[in-house]
């Protein structure tokens, strides 16, 4: 028995549904690009005006706000896509589709892994599009890199996006397995995503946060994702609107470690919640 490949069946079906509906597919790809285009360009124009009088810190590479924010948009898109990645479990449960799977010999862990991988794939597709579109409208990613360095940077970015994405799909699967009906789902997701979003360095520097927020930000998986993405796309040392960013290899390794622990914990929780779920 090729039991260990069972999760591929779940993955296959979820991807089939994702690519079948062109409107959903196109909107999920266009939306982050639009955000980057309008919000990013508008904000960077504002920041350029505000910081026009300030002298840049000497000796440190300066990057534009659009570049800084593009990394944030990559992280936020991954967060939102992943948070909704597990919801399919709730709908399958409600429409009776989950029964077929539950009565089959497929171990339940495979359902979680299959849905997780499918959410991860969706994030990869979106991140690729944002990166390509961003570079097209002037985001200075991978500047001065050789082709080999670009490849390494891309792999590094996708490693962070992948682990983070799995963690949040597992979290949303756990929530979906625990809920009886879709009512209240939107509320829970907003309650989860907004604090993560604002207590992070996605759109503005976290260095100037008050100490309490700063501590929260350090515990926020989103902050660690953004650290990783910025490290690989912009570089270890840069300044933006007068704030200096420096990430050592140790910082990035720590961020990766935090994300790995978070994702492992979420997998455990998802397995436990899914194991408790009775589907009839």
């Amino acid at each position, binding site marked *: 028995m090729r039991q260990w490949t069972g999760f591929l069946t779940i993955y296959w079906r979820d991807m089939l549904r994702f690519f079948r509906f062109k409107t959903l597919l196109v909107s999920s790809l266009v939306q982050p690009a639009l955000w980057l285009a309008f919000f990013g360009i508008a904000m960077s124009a504002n920041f350029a005006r505000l910081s026009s009088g300030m002298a840049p810190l000497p000796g440190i590479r300066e990057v534009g706000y659009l570049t800084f924010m593009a990394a944030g948009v990559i992280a936020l898109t991954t967060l939102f896509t992943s948070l909704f990645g597990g919801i399919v479990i709730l709908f399958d449960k409600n429409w009776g589709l989950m029964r077929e799977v539950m009565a*089959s010999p497929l171990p339940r862990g495979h359902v979680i892994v299959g849905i997780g991988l499918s959410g991860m794939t969706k994030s990869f597709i979106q991140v690729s599009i944002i990166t390509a579109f961003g570079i097209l409208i002037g985001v200075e990613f991978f500047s001065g890199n050789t082709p080999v360095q670009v490849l390494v940077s891309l792999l590094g970015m996708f490693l962070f996006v992948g682990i983070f994405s799995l963690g949040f799909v597992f979290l949303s699967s756990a929530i979906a397995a625990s809920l009886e009906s879709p009512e209240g789902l939107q509320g829970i997701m907003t309650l989860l995503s907004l604090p993560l979003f604002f207590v992070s360095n996605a759109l503005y520097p976290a260095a100037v946060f008050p100490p309490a927020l700063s501590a929260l930000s350090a515990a926020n998986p989103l902050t660690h994702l953004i650290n990783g993405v910025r490290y690989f796309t912009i570089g270890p040392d840069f300044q933006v609107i007068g704030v200096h960013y420096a990430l050592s290899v140790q910082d990035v390794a720590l961020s990766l470690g935090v994300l790995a622990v978070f994702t492992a914990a979420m997998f455990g929780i998802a397995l436990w919640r899914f194991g408790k779920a009775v589907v009839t």
Partner: protein
Amino acid sequence: MGSPPIIEVSSLFHSYGETEAVRGVSFFVREGEIFSLLGPNGAGKSTVINVLITLLPLQKGNVTIAGYDLARDPAHVRRSIGIVFQEVTLDRDMTCREILEFHGRLYQMPAAERKARIEELLALVELRGKADTLTRHLSGGMKRRLEIARGLMTRPRILFLDEPTIGLDPQTRRRMWDYIRAVNREGTTIFLTTHYMDEADSLSDRISIMDHGTIVTTGTGWELKNRLGEDLIYLETSDNARARDVLGGVPDVGELREKSHGIVAMVKKDGTFLLPVLIERLISEGIRVHAVNLKKPSLDDVFVHYTGRELRDEGQGRGPLQGGPAGVRPG
């Protein structure tokens, strides 16, 4: 007579919190037969089937399916059975072929076998022309047929059908019965739950009637009906109460029941000859007979006899023997 049992259930109990849905159910199903669990909605049929197909945990009791102990070896039980669920459980956004492909993959069928089996089954349920149609565009009967095909995908030894014709029009129901019989002829044991009397009667080799979480009686349709006597005679008279006393004195008349407008007599002899005798007896007592009806007992009558309640069945007309407003459970 008959083959060895392929399903054996003994002293099965199941509760949802404080509510006891199944209260000590025991039965067996022989290999190769069509077995029906018949009963009104809420009788506990679905709970029994959900325990057998491993969707609900086995709380109390012993169950053996296809030689495997349900408590110890649910994985092997799952590989031995096919299931058609009560409600439609097809992904609206997948085609017929994809539905079967997904199922085959879930059970780890090799690709070549999957491919061949899909074509074979689409032909069996006459959905070849719809192979690449999204299931959202199928009619109710087509959806049911596709679900039967899916249940058979892995060549299970037993096919479970939970209310397979619920919500289908009468012609489509009859065609479904033909498919079920065809599947059974190929050697698959069929376990059916239904609240349609005619369905159980027409399809099954053996029937268990379930009510309030217990099995009230089991047998072939013919055995069950014969337990009520040879014939049922319905009479409307000018004085039903007195008529009842008079008929009670006739040796060949068994149990008597008063209905809202008349009396039903279960008789032990051929009613065609007994009926004139009964009418003469009533007339001689000065009781006028307004209406008569004579029929063989149906499963409805069996059900009423064992449960004291009517089981309304939209698939059958409402004859005088099934009349009576009292004690009808919501359908």
